[in-house]
C-alpha cells in the first residue's frame, strides 16, 4: 500500500473553515468484478458478465441526476465508480445513496462498483484550484481507461457524461474508451428502450426548469441540519413523522412523536400543523422537526365530517385546543412514487403562462399537487401517470416532479389496480428466466417424485398416520395438513397425538427457487404433540422433517357437513365406504374436541375474540360480482385455525429457546388506552362498561356486552375494539426485551408464523430456524451461519412494512369492489342500493354507520353544503330541510320547522348507497339517510338479486371478464412479490388465479389478516382461506 495525503477544506461545528488532512491509501489490487478479468482479481459476489457488448461508466453528474435511468434492468454492464457514488452520497443524501447501494447489491441488476480512488493507477489527486466537477469527470475517465486496459481491451468502455466539454476533451484520447452524452448513448445503444429515453427527457427538462425558478419566496427556509439536531436534543423542536389528514388535506396535518424526543410530559398527543404555510413544504410521511406555537395560537382538530377536500368550515366544530406547531425543517424526506392525473385540457391552458408546466393532482389526497414539465400533456389527458418528486424550493408553491411512466386511462380497471399497488409501494416485476429456471420441474412427462435419499432422513408418516387437509373449496395450494390419533395409554392415562404438518418449502426454496408443490405425497415439516387425552397437557413435543401422504383433501363446508353428520360426498372415497368415512369423521370430531379445549385454555389466559368487517363478493359463472356477502365462519374454521395457532406457538417456543438472540417471532403490543375511549363511550350509551385494563378484562367485558334484542351491538363493539388494537409485528428476539414478546390478542407468551410458508416469507425464515434448531439438537451445528440479530431485525422490519402496505392495499381494493358493485345500480330505483345500517359513532355533523348486509362502513351526513339538515316525516322517511343540528354524547338531533328527529347510537336506520365518481382520486361510496327506521328488507333480497345481477352487467364489470387473464397473471406476480419482500429468494409458482377478484383476495390473504393476529377467533387462516373459496 502506498500512503498519500488528501487535503480537505471542511467546516467545523462552529462554522469556521478548517483545513483537514486525511490519509489516503492506494493499493495495486482492487477487484474489478468483471468475469473477463485477466489479472485474477479477487472478485467475490456479483460479477459483470462478459456477454454484454460494452461496459458503461456513468460520471458523477449522470449518477447523481439520472440514476433512475440506470435503474432500468435492461441496461446491463454498468460500472459505477467510487467517485460517482460519493458524489451521489454528498449531493443527494442518504436515501438516494442507499438506493444506489441496494442497486449494487441486487443480483438482478447488472452493475458493480469499482473503487477507483483506492487503485494506485486509476487514482488522480485533485489539482490545486481544479473545480470539483472537472476533477470528478477526470477521475471517472481515468477509471474508464484503467478498466479498459485492465481487461486487456477485451471490452469497449463507454463513459457517459452530461458535460459537453468533457466529451470534446476526452473522446479521442484513447481508442476503446468512448465518451458520450447520456442521450446519445441511449439512442445509440438502447434504441429499443424507448421508456428510458422518455424518462431521460422528462428528468432533463425538470432539471432545466429548476434553474429558472422565480425568486418570490412562498415559504420560510428550512433550518440547517445541525441547528435542527441541536434543537431536538434541547427539546426546543419535536421530531416526528408528518401525517396529513386525508379529509382535510390542505389544512390539517399531525406530527406523531418518535418516542424518546418527547420529554415534556404535557405533550402526550400529536402536534397539529395547520395550513400550508405552517406545514412548510413537508409532504405526508416526511420526518420533520416542528416548533410549538405559543399556547394562545393553539387550535383544535376538526371533528365535523367533511365531504371532499378543501371545504372550509367554521371554527365551531373544533375540539379542545391541542398542541399546535409549525414545521421548521425536514430531517428525512420520504418521497415515493406517486400516481397523478393530469387536469383536463381547458384547465391547463388557463392556469399557466408556460404551457410546458402542468399541475397534476395526485391520487392520494394527502399529497399536494405536483408541478410537472412535460410536452406530452395533451397526450396524457385523463391518464394516470407515475411521477417522482424532485424538489420543493421555498420559492415555489408546489413541488416539482417529473413523470416516470404512464399507467393507463383513468377509470379502467387495470389502471386502477395498478394505482392501488403503486400507491402502496407494492412492486410486481415479473420473474426472471433465471428464477424460473431454479424450480424443480413437475410436468406430465416428468412427474416430480419422492427422492429415496430423502426418505431415509425423514420420518415416514405415510402408512402410520391418517393425514388430511381442510382448505377452502377449490384451493390448489394446500400447505397445511393435520393428523390426529390415539396412542397406547401411558402411565398417566389416555394419550392423543395431534400433528400439524406444513409443506417443507425450505427444502425446495434453497436459495431462491420456485416450486409447484405436489399436493399428495410430499415432504413436510411437522410438529407432533403427545397429549393427555383428558387434560390435554403436553407430554412431549416432536419437531422434524417428515414424509406424509394426505389421504383426504377436504374443504371447509364438507368438513363441517361431516361433523354435523350430514350426507356428504368425499371425493377421495368415490363410492362411500362406511368404515373409512367413520374413521375420518371420528378424527374430525376428536380434532374439534381438542381445538375447543385449546381455545378454552387460551380464553382463560385472556385471548380476545374480535370482529373484523369482511365481505366477499359472490361471483356467477361469468365471474361477475353478483352480491356482496359478509363472511360466515363455520366451526371447522376455528378448529383448523386453533391447531395452526397451537403449532405456531410451540414452534415459537422452540426457536426462541434454541436461538435466544436471533429468532423471528411475532408479538402484539397492548393497545394504547386512549384508543379505547370511543369504544367505552359507545358502550356506555347502551349501558355496558368495557374494562380495558388487560386483555382478559377486555375479553370478559366484551362477552358481557350483549344486547339480547340486537346481536349487532356486540358485533359492532368488537369491531371497534379491533380498531383500537395496535398491529402485530414481527421482530427478532435479540432486539426486544423478553417481557415484550407477549401476544396480546392471542394471549400467548410466544408466537410466530410457521404454518403458511407458501404465502408468507416470514414462515420460511421460521422454517429455516426450526431446521437449524433440530440440527443443533442432533449435535450438528447449523449448516451455515444463520442471520444475525441485526439482519433478522431488518428483515422483520421489511416484512412489517410490506405487511402494512398489503393490508392497506387490501382495504382500498375492498372499497374498489364495493364501488364496482354499486356503480351500475341506479340508487333511486334499485332496491339493493337501499339497506339497513347501524349507527356506531356520532360526529358533529353526521354519524358513522355500519351496513351489515354489505359489510360496509361509512359516513352519513345530516347537514349538507347548503346548511340544510335531515328531518323526519311522519312515515319515517327523511327530507332535507333548513334547520339546526345538535350533537350529544349518544345521540344527535336535527330541529327543523317540521319537528325534531333524533338519531341514537346503535339505532338501525335505512340508507341509500350511491357511488360518487371522482376524476383524480378513487371513487367513493356515498350514503344518504332514507329513513331513521330499520329497513324492511324483503327476506329473499339477496337470493333474488343474484339472477338480476347476472343480467345487469355494467361496462366495468364486463371489463373484469375481459381483463381476467391479465389480472390472473398479475396476481401471480404479486403473490410472489409480496411474499418476496426484500431479497430475491422467495418465489413460488402456484395455481393460476382465476380472476381479478381472487387477485385482490390474494392481497387480503397476504395481509396476513392481522385480525387473526388480534385473535379474531376464526383466525386469519380460516378467514383468508375462505376468501379464496369464493372464487371457485
Amino acid at each position, binding site marked *: 500500500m502506498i500512503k498519500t495525503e488528501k487535503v480537505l477544506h*471542511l467546516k467545523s461545528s462552529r462554522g469556521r473553515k*478548517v483545513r483537514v*488532512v486525511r*490519509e489516503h491509501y492506494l493499493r495495486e489490487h482492487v477487484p474489478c468484478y468483471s468475469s473477463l478479468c485477466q489479472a485474477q482479481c479477487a472478485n467475490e459476489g456479483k460479477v459483470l458478465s462478459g456477454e454484454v457488448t460494452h461496459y458503461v461508466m456513468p460520471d458523477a453528474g449522470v449518477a447523481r441526476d439520472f440514476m433512475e435511468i440506470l435503474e432500468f434492468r435492461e441496461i446491463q454492464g454498468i460500472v459505477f465508480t467510487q467517485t460517482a457514488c460519493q458524489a451521489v452520497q454528498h449531493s443527494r443524501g442518504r436515501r438516494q445513496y442507499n438506493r444506489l447501494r441496494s442497486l449494487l447489491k441486487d443480483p438482478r441488476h447488472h452493475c458493480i462498483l469499482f*473503487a477507483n480512488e483506492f487503485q494506485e493507477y486509476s487514482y488522480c489527486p485533485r489539482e490545486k484550484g481544479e473545480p470539483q466537477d472537472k476533477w470528478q469527470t477526470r477521475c471517472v475517465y481515468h477509471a474508464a481507461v484503467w478498466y479498459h486496459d485492465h481487461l486487456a481491451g477485451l471490452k469497449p468502455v463507454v463513459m457517459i457524461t452530461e458535460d459537453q466539454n468533457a466529451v470534446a476533451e476526452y473522446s479521442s484520447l484513447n481508442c476503446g474508451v468512448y465518451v458520450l452524452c447520456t442521450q446519445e448513448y441511449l439512442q445509440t445503444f438502447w434504441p429499443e428502450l424507448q421508456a428510458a429515453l422518455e424518462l431521460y427527457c422528462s428528468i432533463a427538462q425538470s432539471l432545466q426548469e429548476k434553474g429558472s425558478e422565480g425568486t418570490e419566496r412562498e415559504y420560510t427556509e428550512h433550518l440547517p441540519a445541525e441547528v435542527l439536531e441541536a434543537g431536538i436534543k434541547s427539546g426546543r423542536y419535536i421530531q416526528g413523522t408528518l401525517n396529513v389528514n386525508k379529509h382535510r388535506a390542505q389544512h390539517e396535518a399531525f406530527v406523531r412523536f418518535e418516542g424518546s424526543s418527547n420529554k415534556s410530559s404535557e405533550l402526550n398527543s400529536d402536534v397539529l400543523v395547520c395550513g400550508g404555510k405552517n406545514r412548510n413544504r413537508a409532504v405526508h410521511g416526511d420526518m420533520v422537526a416542528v416548533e410549538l406555537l405559543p399556547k394562545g395560537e393553539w387550535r383544535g382538530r376538526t371533528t365535523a365530517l367533511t365531504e371532499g377536500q378543501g371545504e372550509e368550515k367554521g371554527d365551531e366544530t373544533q375540539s379542545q385546543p391541542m398542541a399546535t406547531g409549525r414545521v421548521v425543517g425536514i430531517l428525512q424526506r420520504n418521497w415515493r412514487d406517486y400516481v397523478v392525473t393530469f387536469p383536463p385540457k381547458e384547465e391547463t391552458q388557463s392556469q399557466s403562462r408556460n404551457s410546458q408546466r402542468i399541475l397534476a393532482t395526485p391520487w392520494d389526497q394527502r399529497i399536494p399537487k405536483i408541478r410537472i414539465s412535460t410536452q406530452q400533456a395533451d397526450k396524457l389527458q385523463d391518464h394516470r401517470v407515475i411521477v417522482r418528486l424532485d424538489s420543493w424550493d421555498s420559492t415555489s408553491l408546489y413541488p416539482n416532479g417529473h413523470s416516470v411512466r404512464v399507467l393507463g386511462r383513468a377509470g379502467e380497471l387495470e389502471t386502477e389496480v395498478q394505482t392501488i399497488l403503486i400507491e402502496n409501494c407494492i412492486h410486481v416485476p415479473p420473474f426472471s428466466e433465471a428464477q424460473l429456471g431454479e424450480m424443480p420441474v413437475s410436468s406430465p412427462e416428468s412427474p416430480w417424485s419422492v427422492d429415496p435419499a430423502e426418505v431415509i432422513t425423514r420420518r415416514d408418516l405415510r402408512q402410520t398416520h391418517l393425514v388430511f387437509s381442510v382448505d377452502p373449496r377449490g384451493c390448489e395450494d394446500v400447505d397445511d395438513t393435520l393428523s390426529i390419533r390415539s396412542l397406547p395409554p401411558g402411565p398417566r392415562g389416555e394419550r392423543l397425538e395431534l400433528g400439524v404438518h406444513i409443506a417443507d418449502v425450505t427444502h425446495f426454496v434453497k436459495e431462491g427457487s420456485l416450486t409447484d408443490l405436489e399436493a399428495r405425497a410430499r415432504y413436510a415439516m411437522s410438529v407432533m404433540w403427545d397429549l393427555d387425552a383428558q387434560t390435554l397437557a403436553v407430554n412431549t413435543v416432536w419437531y422434524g422433517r417428515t414424509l406424509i401422504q394426505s389421504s383426504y383433501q377436504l374443504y371447509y363446508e364438507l368438513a363441517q357437513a361431516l361433523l354435523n353428520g350430514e350426507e356428504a360426498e368425499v371425493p377421495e372415497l368415490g363410492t362411500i365406504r362406511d368404515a373409512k368415512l367413520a374413521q375420518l369423521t371420528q378424527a374430525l370430531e376428536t380434532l374439534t374436541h381438542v381445538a375447543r379445549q385449546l381455545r378454552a385454555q387460551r380464553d382463560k389466559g385472556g385471548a380476545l375474540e374480535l370482529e373484523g368487517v369482511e365481505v366477499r363478493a359472490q361471483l356467477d359463472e361469468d365471474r361477475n360480482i353478483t352480491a356482496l356477502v359478509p363472511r360466515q365462519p363455520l366451526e371447522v374454521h376455528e378448529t383448523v385455525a386453533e391447531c395452526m395457532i397451537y403449532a405456531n406457538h410451540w414452534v415459537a417456543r422452540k426457536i426462541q429457546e434454541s436461538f435466544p438472540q436471533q429468532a423471528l417471532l411475532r408479538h402484539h403490543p397492548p393497545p394504547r388506552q386512549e384508543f379505547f375511549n370511543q369504544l367505552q363511550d359507545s358502550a356506555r350509551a347502551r349501558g355496558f362498561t368495557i374494562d380495558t385494563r388487560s386483555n382478559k378484562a377486555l375479553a370478559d367485558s366484551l362477552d358481557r356486552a350483549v344486547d339480547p334484542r340486537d346481536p349487532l351491538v356486540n358485533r359492532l363493539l368488537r369491531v371497534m375494539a379491533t380498531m383500537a388494537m395496535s398491529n402485530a409485528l414481527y421482530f427478532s428476539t435479540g432486539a426486544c426485551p423478553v417481557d415484550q414478546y407477549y401476544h396480546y390478542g392471542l394471549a400467548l407468551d410466544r408466537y410466530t408464523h410457521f404454518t403458511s410458508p407458501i404465502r408468507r416469507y416470514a414462515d420460511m425464515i421460521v422454517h429455516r430456524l426450526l431446521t437449524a434448531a433440530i440440527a443443533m439438537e442432533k449435535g450438528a451445528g447449523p449448516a451455515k451461519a444463520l442471520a*444475525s440479530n*441485526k439482519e433478522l431485525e431488518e428483515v422483520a422490519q421489511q416484512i412489517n412494512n410490506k405487511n402494512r402496505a398489503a393490508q392497506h392495499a387490501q382495504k382500498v381494493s375492498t372499497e374498489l369492489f364495493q364501488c364496482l358493485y354499486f356503480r351500475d345500480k341506479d340508487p333511486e330505483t334499485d332496491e339493493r342500493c337501499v339497506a339497513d345500517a347501524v349507527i356506531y359513532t356520532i360526529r358533529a355533523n353526521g354519524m358513522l354507520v355500519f351496513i351489515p348486509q354489505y359489510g360496509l362502513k361509512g359516513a352519513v351526513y345530516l347537514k349538507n353544503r347548503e346548511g340544510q339538515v335531515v328531518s323526519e316525516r311522519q312515515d319515517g322517511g327523511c327530507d332535507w330541510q333548513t334547520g339546526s343540528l345538535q350533537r350529544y354524547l349518544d345521540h344527535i338531533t336535527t330541529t327543523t320547522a317540521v319537528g325534531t328527529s333524533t338519531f341514537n347510537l346503535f339505532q338501525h336506520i335505512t340508507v341509500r348507497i350511491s357511488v360518487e365518481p371522482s376524476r383524480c382520486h378513487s371513487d367513493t361510496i356515498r350514503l344518504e339517510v332514507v329513513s331513521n327506521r330499520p329497513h324492511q328488507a324483503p327476506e329473499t333480497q339477496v337470493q333474488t338479486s343474484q339472477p338480476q345481477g347476472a343480467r345487469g352487467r355494467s361496462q366495468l364489470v364486463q371489463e373484469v371478464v375481459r381483463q381476467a387473464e391479465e389480472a390472473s397473471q398479475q396476481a401471480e406476480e404479486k403473490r410472489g412479490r409480496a411474499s418476496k419482500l426484500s431479497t430475491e429468494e422467495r418465489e413460488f409458482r402456484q395455481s393460476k388465479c382465476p380472476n381479478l377478484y381472487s387477485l385482490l383476495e390474494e392481497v387480503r390473504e397476504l395481509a396476513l389478516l392481522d385480525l387473526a393476529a388480534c385473535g379474531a377467533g376464526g383466525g386469519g387462516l380460516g378467514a383468508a382461506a375462505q376468501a379464496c373459496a369464493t372464487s371457485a
Partner: protein
Amino acid sequence: MAGLELLSDQGYRLDGRKAAELRKVQARMGVFAQADGSAYIEQGNTKALAVVYGPHEVRGSRSKTLHDRAVINCQYSMATFSTAERKRRPHGDRKSTEMSLHLKQTFEAAVLTNLYPRSQIDIYVKILQSDGGNYSACVNAATLAVVDAGIPMRDYVCACTAGFVDETPLADLCHAEESGGGTSLALALLPRGGHIALLQMDARLHQDHLETLMEAAMTACKGVSKVLDEVVRQHLQEVSALTGE
C-alpha cells in the same frame, strides 16, 4: 459529519484501508542527545514524541519514594498545533491528566521497576499532530524511548485501538473513525506473553462482540510490535556501526 460511511459495502474504510489493516507506522529512536532516551513515531498522521529521563533519584517531595521499586512519572501533552483548530492546551487539564495516569499504569506493568528501588523514571510524551489513536501512539513512542534509555522491560508494550462498525472490527482508527460515534477500544499489550497492560473502552458495546473486538485489537498490537522490533534492531545496527563494534 454524522453520515460518513465508515465501512463501505466493498469493505473499504474511509482512507482506503481494509478492516484489519493498520496505518503506516514509521519511527525513529534517539532523536535527542540531551535525554537518556527518546523516540519519535508516526502512526498515519498521528505524530508523537517521547522522552525518558532516568532512572535517577527521586526529585521533589521525598515522600513519594518507594523502597522496593522505582517511581514512574508520566506527563502527556498535546501541541497547540496538533489539531485542525489551533487551541491552547494548558497543562493539567482533565484529559491529559487522565492520559498521563493511563500511561503510568501501562509502564508500571511493563518496566522492571524492582531493579531500581528509591529511584524515579520520567516519561514525557507530546502529541505533535493528532489524528486518532493518541494513546496508542504515545505508548509506542514511550516504549521505544524506554528501550533507547536502556531501561529493562518485560517486553515491548504495544498499543493499538480498534473500533466496531457494522459487526466488523476495525483496527487502528483514524480521527474520522473515532469521532464517527462508534465504539473505540484502546489496548496495550505485552505481545510475547499476550499479557494485557491496559484496556480501555468508553462507549457501549454488546457483550457478545467484546471478544472479537479484543481479538482484533490484539492482532493489531502484534502487528505494531513487529514494526517496533524492526525499528529497534535497525537503530541498534546503526549505533553499533557508529561506535565501531
